[in-house]
């Protein structure tokens, strides 16, 4: 089969590799019909996530048709399914309390040592996301082996196009959980840093959950425009002092909840951020966290800080004093995708949520490397790239 493989920092290519097979009884093989490039794939692309090996197949947002099932899979041939990016066994303590992204059994034993050392506990398995999360082959390919296929994938009805449901795999539940973590109350003003896919879906979700006002912060005009179309007010941080603006806009109280949908690659001009960039370059792996630091200073006393943005290492000058003195609640984590899929699918089917506005580009899988390059370099216009293995080359 053909698959998009990581070859080195900012080097990816589509190669011919052996087709996946049923390896364990609960496996299924999915023929991929649509797969997306995620902002967090750019972390792998840029080499800031460790434990990548040349030849690794990327992609954790994908869907397709079931073409083969293991003896213990509950899927049936021909079903259309969306696959969560988190791999979960369904039987461990964390799965049973619906903390699916903390599954204790999905990361192969021999791959658990690194994250256990780094974080104190091993991470769960994730598709196409380095050997720290299992080294699973990802979905930017013609076929994928999906472990625990009786727990993860959700069957979608035929009348819903791929583009309508694909984002159930990651960014829609991630935006939704980010808003849920912000514990939104009816009169709340919520500020969201980053109008990438997760930020936009967090804005959409916060509005759906009844936030009185949502303020979106970014510097890309087109992304801010999309936020505005969803019903948010906007701040361009290149033109405006964000904390000052948020204080004024909230009548001097501060915003009630903040969402950092930027993560470790945040752009900013703070001195410590520059230091963090330098450390990232020399391989110390410090996370640039300027958005989070700014969010913590902007949120009111007793406010909620929700962090869907991805961080992998450590950060300097974290304003812990502000967290304590202001009595903030900090909630974060990889998304428990399986917890949200069914409800969000129902909302899509009922027309309450539409996510197709996000897609700016559709490419054949063969052109995936260009997709990565453009998504990284032209973030304003390339809001979301969907790769279609079935699409003929040169038709994009």
């Amino acid at each position, binding site marked *: 089969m053909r698959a998009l493989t990581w070859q080195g920092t900012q080097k990816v290519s589509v190669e011919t590799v052996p087709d996946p097979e049923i390896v364990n009884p609960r496996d299924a093989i999915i023929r991929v019909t649509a797969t997306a490039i995620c902002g967090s794939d750019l972390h792998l692309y840029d080499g800031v996530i460790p434990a990548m090996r040349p030849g690794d197949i990327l992609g954790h947002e994908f869907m397709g048709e079931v073409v083969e099932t293991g003896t213990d899979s509950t899927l049936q041939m021909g079903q259309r399914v969306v696959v969560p990016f988190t791999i979960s066994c369904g039987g461990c303590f964390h799965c049973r309390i619906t903390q699916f992204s903390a599954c204790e059994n999905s990361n192969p*034993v021999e791959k658990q040592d690194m994250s256990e050392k780094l974080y104190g506990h091993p991470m769960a398995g994730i598709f196409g996301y380095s050997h720290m999360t299992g080294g699973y082959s990802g979905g930017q390919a013609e076929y994928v082996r999906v472990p625990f296929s009786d727990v993860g994938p959700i069957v979608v009805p035929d009348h819903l196009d791929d583009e309508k449901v694909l984002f159930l795999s990651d960014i829609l539940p991630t935006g939704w959980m980010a808003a849920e973590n912000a514990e939104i109350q009816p009169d709340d003003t919520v500020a969201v840093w980053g109008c990438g896919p997760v930020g936009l879906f967090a804005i959409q979700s916060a509005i759906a959950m009844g936030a009185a006002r949502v303020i979106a912060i970014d510097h890309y005009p087109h992304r801010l425009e999309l936020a505005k179309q969803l019903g948010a007010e906007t701040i361009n941080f290149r033109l405006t002092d964000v904390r000052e603006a948020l204080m004024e806009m909230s009548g001097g109280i501060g915003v009630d909840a903040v969402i950092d949908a930027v993560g470790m690659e945040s752009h900013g001009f703070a001195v410590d951020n520059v230091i963090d960039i330098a450390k990232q370059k020399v391989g110390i792996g410090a996370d640039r966290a300027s958005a989070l630091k700014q969010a913590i200073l902007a949120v009111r006393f007793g406010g909620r800080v929700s962090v869907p943005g991805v961080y992998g290492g450590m950060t300097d000058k974290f304003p812990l004093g502000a967290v304590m003195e202001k009595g903030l609640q900090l909630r974060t984590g990889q998304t428990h995708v399986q917890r949200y899929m069914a409800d969000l699918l129902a909302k899509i089917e009922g027309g309450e949520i539409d996510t197709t506005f996000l897609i700016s580009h559709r490419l054949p899988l063969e052109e995936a490397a260009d997709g990565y390059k453009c998504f990284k370099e032209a973030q304003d216009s390339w809001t979301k790239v969907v790769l279609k293995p079935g699409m003929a080359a040169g038709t994009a």
Partner: protein
Amino acid sequence: MRHESPAKWPYFALAGIGLAAIPLAVGTAAARKRREMRGEHDSAPGHTARRASFGDYHVVGRTVTIARPRAELFAFWRDFQNLPRFMANLDRIEPGGEPGHNTWHIRAPAGKVYAVDTRIAREVDGELIAWRSTEDSEIDTEGRVTFEDAPGDRGTRVGLIVAYKPKGGVIGDMIATLARRSPELQARHDLKRLKMLMEAGEIATSARTCADLPTEKEAR
């Protein structure tokens, strides 16, 4: 209980950390009281002590919570033929001549396989199995697995503790560590594989094809 003097444990290495197969009284309230009166322990399991050696013995241990009933897990372990399914370095177990006697064939670095003759030293149905190598065994080792109910419906806490005298002393232990077959790592990995097998029904692998599977426990 963390004794200072090796002389205090004559035969059973695990006695040194309160886990001997026979002097099990260490788990009792009376024993705890005695230890408290001596003022020389905290509540942590002995194998988490900062020193890992007790006399000539190296001690490793690990606990996992498995969301299955205690009786089921005990029965699975007690059928020793199941052990090679999750213990990577265990090639096979052969029943010995007498009841409770078994020969464990253990893979060591450089392709060597050691035969360890063991006998069950103590067994409490549903709670504990302890074994010890016999005097003429190639490796001097003893181990114990315990099964306790976890709080609420979390299942069972399975604790594995193994004491062994490194073959070739410190050097042998070092080589084993270099070969990534350190017993410390092994105990941890083995219990995680047991957990996967019992909770998920299979052992997770990221192999994309059957050919990618680690060759007969090689890469583990």
